[in-house]
């Protein structure tokens, strides 16, 4: 007997070939700032880089700042392991991202915007520049005083953290700042700055075109709209998929797994590992689902089948964090080193299995005391792997 698999609903909004950005912009620019902000707030759009801050509110808070100079920055420093959707968006629909930036600029009162592009994506630059020239002509035609430049990163994961990104653009080491103050008040060059993920900006184009109501029809409760997922690992169909928020991990695995899925890493190395027994109870979105756990994500979905050693997976993540930690604060710098050393020692039998519990305490400390999201989120993958696959860490 064959069971029919429920196929997740594929959405086609972001990548839809729409060349009407001049019209969308003309309409959006003709509306009052308040009206556009309301539309964005009502859409329920939350930041698609992974943190999930409400986009409309971010624009509103920055618009309220009484400062002459402000900036709009598109965060294209896509470095989370397992994430590659922003590159696809910038390749296929860059005009939607630029339109989102331009509307945001008009609302907050910015004349300058930047795309902070990771160094690994330098090959995108010639096409993006061509697109920028075309877009600037449209802006001139519509009479909007706004220019976008590309700023290249140089191979540092931490620069995807917004305040580290500002430091990097200011010509310094990409070391995160203390928060508050938040970028809406003090961002790039200490000016109020809206910094949005590539996908967030592309969604704002969809919202401006189809309206908040249509966007809200997708998703569940606090997780509205669609999301672009980067699917990789042990799957017969790796790639980029736009899906509705709110799906359960079980539905996702039924659709994308290879029939032998042991665990799914949601949100990249800084996210959570969901073991098989929790597939049904875990959904993808922001908090506020009625039952079970809901995991936010930048869209990285890495699938592991039963041939994979979870020890190797964790070792690989910790190796990544240990290298990418900026080294500024002790909990993260030393914490990452000790976690990596620690799991190796347990595996080799140099430390007892109970040492894992000490390491778990260390991740609690890092969660509390690390200066930025990198150090704080190491605990996510560490605890979800060690707690669910403890035997694999030891034997």
């Amino acid at each position, binding site marked *: 007997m064959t069971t029919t698999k429920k196929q997740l609903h594929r959405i086609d909004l972001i990548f839809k070939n729409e060349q009407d950005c001049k019209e969308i912009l003309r309409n959006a620019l003709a509306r009052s700032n308040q009206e556009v902000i309301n539309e964005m707030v009502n859409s329920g759009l939350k930041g698609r880089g992974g943190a999930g801050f409400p986009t409309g509110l971010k624009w509103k808070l920055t618009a309220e700042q009484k400062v002459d100079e402000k900036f709009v920055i598109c965060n294209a420093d*896509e*470095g*989370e*392991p*397992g*994430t*590659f959707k922003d*590159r696809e968006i910038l390749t296929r629909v860059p005009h939607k991202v630029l339109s989102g930036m331009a509307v945001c600029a008009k609302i907050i009162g910015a004349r300058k915007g930047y795309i902070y592009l*990771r*160094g*690994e*994506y*330098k*090959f995108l630059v010639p096409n993006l520049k061509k697109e920028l020239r075309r877009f600037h002509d449209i802006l001139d035609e519509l009479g909007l005083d706004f220019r976008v430049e590309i*700023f*290249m*990163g*140089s*191979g*540092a*994961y931490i620069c995807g953290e917004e305040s580290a990104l500002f430091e*990097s*653009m*200011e*010509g*310094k*080491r*990409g*070391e995160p700042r203390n928060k508050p103050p938040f970028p809406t008040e003090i961002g790039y*060059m200490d000016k109020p700055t809206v910094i949005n993920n590539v996908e967030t900006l592309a969604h704002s184009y969809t919202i401006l075109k189809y309206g908040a109501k249509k966007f809200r029809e997708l998703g569940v409760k606090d997780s509205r709209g669609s999301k672009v997922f*980067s*699917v*990789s*690992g*042990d799957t017969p169909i*790796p*790639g*980029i998929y736009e899906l509705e928020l709110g799906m359960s991990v079980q539905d996702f695995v039924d659709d994308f797994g290879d029939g032998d899925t042991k665990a799914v*890493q949601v949100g990249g*190395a800084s996210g959570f590992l969901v073991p098989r027994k929790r597939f049904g109870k875990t959904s993808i979105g922001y908090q506020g689902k009625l039952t079970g756990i809901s995991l936010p994500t930048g869209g990285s979905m*890495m699938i592991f089948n039963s041939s*994979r050693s979870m020890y*190797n*997976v964790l070792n*690989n*993540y910790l*190796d*990544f964090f240990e*290298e*990418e930690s*900026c080294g500024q604060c002790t909990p993260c710098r030393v914490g990452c080193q000790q976690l990596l050393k620690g799991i190796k020692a347990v595996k080799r039998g140099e430390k007892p299995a109970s040492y894992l519990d000490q390491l778990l305490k260390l991740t609690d400390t890092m969660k509390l005391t690390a200066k930025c999201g990198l150090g704080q989120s190491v605990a996510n993958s560490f605890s979800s792997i060690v707690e669910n696959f403890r035997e694999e860490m030891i034997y």
Partner: protein
Amino acid sequence: MDFQEKLVHDLVAKHGTDRENLLPILQGVIDQERYLSEEAILKIAKEMSIPAADVYGTATFYSFLDTDPRGKYVIRVCKTITCAMKGKNQIIQAIESFLKIKVGETTVDKKFTILQTNCLGWCHKAPAMLVNDDVYTELTPESVVDILREYREEN
């Protein structure tokens, strides 16, 4: 004015002496010389009137702003989880035995350097590598050798 002096001078003239132009200037030197020598760092510091320690401190933060000599072609093989699962080690072995150097080393003719790097964002087409700015995906031990042979045999 030697080549490097002119390079730094032109880059600073193009971008400006303000600190926020430091990264594009460092990247400009890397494009030409593949690494930031001590001399280049001192010249940038002088032209921009900022302490050489600041220039060095900034450069060493970024994995693409190398301060060790590199070959004309820098090979960066992704070592993050999906590439590791899909055979990154075999790719490295194939490159090492073809070029007869180890990861971290540069060939005697200064043509190639092999490095490993963190997630390149091609997990759906793993394993992946960069050769300077060019991307190669879904590598096999055979295809990677074919790719590098073309680089080796050019001009």
